């Protein structure tokens, strides 16, 4: 009997709640300030990628949904101490909506690659989810909310891509360390489970 690690639902709610807190904590760390402080480049998107890489698609996305719900409810958890319903009315709404989707993408790829965590695949997963998916949604948000043309929105977004690529690599390095220190989260890759080895020996 193989139990898929994600089926341990008793741990899901605590994992989701704890990780929402982690994303909030990572948002406190200031990194570089672009445009004189308008958009702080913080570790917050690192938290988004890590949620997927550590918790997988479903729990990772839920952690970000809970995080956004806390922001909507009025906690100042976004980078720069911002929060409340107002942030969803602004031009960065695409990125906010993108948080859970990006976490899902990173998680889906990471958990599909399975155990053991391989750095190269991890970087691929983090870049696809944390950079491509997140920024695509952010750009859509800019087009719809800030009335920018797609080309101008892409140009505006491009400033943040290098930072997020760096964060994607950091995410993979961190995830590698975390999965090594706390095993059991990643599903076994097909063909490497003990059961198939036992069958082969029959």
């Amino acid at each position, binding site marked *: 009997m193989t139990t898929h690690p994600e089926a341990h*639902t*008793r*741990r899901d*709610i*605590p*994992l*989701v*709640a*704890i*990780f*929402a*807190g*982690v994303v*909030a*904590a*990572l948002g*406190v760390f200031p990194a570089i300030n672009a*445009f*004189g402080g*308008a*958009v702080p480049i913080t*570790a917050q998107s*690192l938290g988004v990628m*890590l949620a997927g890489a*550590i918790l997988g698609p479903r729990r990772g996305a*839920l952690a970000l949904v*809970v*995080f956004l*719900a*806390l922001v*909507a*409810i*009025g*906690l*100042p*958890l976004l980078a720069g*101490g*911002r*929060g*409340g*319903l*107002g*942030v969803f*009315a*602004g*031009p*960065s709404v695409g990125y906010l909506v993108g948080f859970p989707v990006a976490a899902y993408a990173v998680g889906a790829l990471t958990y599909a690659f399975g155990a053991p965590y391989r750095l190269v695949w991890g970087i691929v997963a983090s870049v696809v989810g944390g950079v491509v998916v997140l920024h695509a949604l952010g750009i859509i948000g800019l087009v719809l*909310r*800030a*009335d*920018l*043309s797609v080309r*101008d929105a892409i140009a505006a977004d491009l400033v943040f891509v290098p930072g997020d690529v760096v964060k994607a690599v*950091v995410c993979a*390095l*961190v995830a590698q*360390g*975390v999965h090594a*220190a*706390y095993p059991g989260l990643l599903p076994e890759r097909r063909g490497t489970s003990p059961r198939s080895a036992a069958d082969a020996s029959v």
Partner: protein
Amino acid sequence: MNGALGLYRAGTSPLHRLPATAKLTGLAVAGAGSVLVDTPAQTAAFVASGLALYPLARVPVRVLVDMVRPLAWVLVPLAVFQVVFIGWGRTVVLVGVILALVLVANVVTLTTRTTDLIDVVVALCRPLRFIGVDPLRVGLALNLAIRCVPLMADLAGEVRDAQRARGLELSPRAFVVPLLVRALHRADDLGDALAARGFDD
């Protein structure tokens, strides 16, 4: 870290007394109606009505300015850019509508308790039961997460202090890995505590 305290400001103004559902409906109406705002004159009226909510909620000007300032950093460059491409009229409408909606949304946040908002979220989840969403679990997850915010902030502080005491570089990896591992163990503890109280699946 003031994350757990929230942006809500206690008070007894008419807006404070209004139920959360009414305020959120008002916000939704404002959001829906904003697509009909076409001219600078209408936009000015929209922004003015948003601003008018603040004295009604007895919110000091300082608080209003603090909340709007980060938005200004984004809206001003946007306005400057768009004036060139779409002209004054449309830029005023574009920026004004965003400003007005942010004002209305923020005043809801300022006058509504987080607990009341959680109740609304849970109530909104009830129709989602048919796709497997349990409103009680949603409420539990939200309340738990609110407590996890200061918890994780404290954990981060502990890890940082421990690293400093060892004289280690605060590289992202050296800091975030222990933080996450400890966080995962905390989640295990929480799961055990919940199960002990009968919140098992």
